[in-house]
């Protein structure tokens, strides 16, 4: 069933990262990691090609280590569902510099478009809020995306969570680096850390 007025995932992500300044962006396994690459490769992009369910926790570890740095996790509904417990862990730690955006197409797009739990029952905004992430919202307009992108830079008011309903169009794949060590060390280098 197609729904009207769903947002375009690439437009959402490029808006989130348009004026990113010092943001570290973590893309969850699946199309989200391609989306952050499509918005422009960047030394502070953390591309995940595996570890499904781990994106939000990588964000938490980074946010706690660098409390003045805005950390933005951009992932999909399937990836978030697999790590749903991490919302409880984040709700307990309340890192004020962590933001999570779920690009929700209600489907496992990488594996054939099988419907996900968010298509009919699971409400991730409700889950996030019930886990103690008070700033949890459902986003359906680009104006709301723009407002969220601004809020990401306020590292004293998080954590925040947004679920963005996007259309399920399959887009051209923009493939980022698959070399995990390079990806991590590039971020560490940009943050000023020396190799071991």
């Amino acid at each position, binding site marked *: 069933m197609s729904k009207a007025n769903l947002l375009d995932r690439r437009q959402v992500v490029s808006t989130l990262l348009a004026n990113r300044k010092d943001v570290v962006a973590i893309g969850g396994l699946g199309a989200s990691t391609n989306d952050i690459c499509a918005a422009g490769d960047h030394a502070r992009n953390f591309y995940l090609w595996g570890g499904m369910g781990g994106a939000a926790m*990588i964000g938490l570890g980074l946010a706690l*280590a660098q409390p003045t740095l805005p950390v933005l996790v951009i992932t999909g509904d399937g990836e978030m569902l697999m790590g749903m417990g991490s919302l409880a862990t984040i709700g307990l730690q309340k890192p004020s510099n962590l933001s999570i955006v779920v690009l929700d197409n209600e489907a496992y797009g990488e594996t054939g478009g099988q419907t996900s739990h968010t298509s009919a029952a699971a409400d991730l905004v409700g889950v996030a809020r019930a886990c103690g992430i008070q700033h949890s919202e459902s986003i359906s307009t680009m104006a709301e995306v723009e407002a969220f992108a601004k809020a990401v830079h306020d590292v004293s008011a998080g954590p925040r969570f947004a679920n963005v309903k996007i259309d399920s169009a399959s887009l051209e794949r923009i493939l980022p680096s698959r070399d*995990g060590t390079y990806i991590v060390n590039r971020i560490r280098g940009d943050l000023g850390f020396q190799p071991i």
Partner: protein
Amino acid sequence: MHARADAADTVPESSTLWPDDIFATLQRFDVRQVPYVPDAGHSKLIQRVLGSSTMRGIPLTTEEEGVALLAGAWTGGQRGVLLMQSSGVGNCINMLSLIPILRFPFLTLVTMRGEWGEFNPWQVPMGSTTQGVFELSGVKVLRASNAAEVPAVLEAAAAQAYNALTPTAVLLSQRLIGAKVFTK
């Protein structure tokens, strides 16, 4: 009620100090993030961590969260250690793939169940495969079986994990922590 066999007065006092030895080693290696799923065998160490001004104890809902957390911590310049019991190791398997891929320092301290005087048969299958799971996943395994060897084992584990980026698990044997006693 749950108790520990080593609570008996036959155990020398020094043997109950090994969690303090672990804490001291972690502090010396500048460990900052300590994700954990609680276990009775880790309770004293968790108390020390939660009372520390330099370490942050982070309760997890499931152990694989801790593997991903440590990857993020390292990316942000901090070292961590994952505390769990042997049952939790099975929960981590796919997430352990992040360690060789991202090449971050990984140290985990695992309190063992399902061995040495175990009462609960349900602990035995995972306890029996804990070491094998780690080794198949590329994590080196060290073991401490008595309080006296804890400091040296921890020192070696932390050194190879943080200095040589050798993923390392320390199994704290049930002989060390004491078999869990179930009383009505």
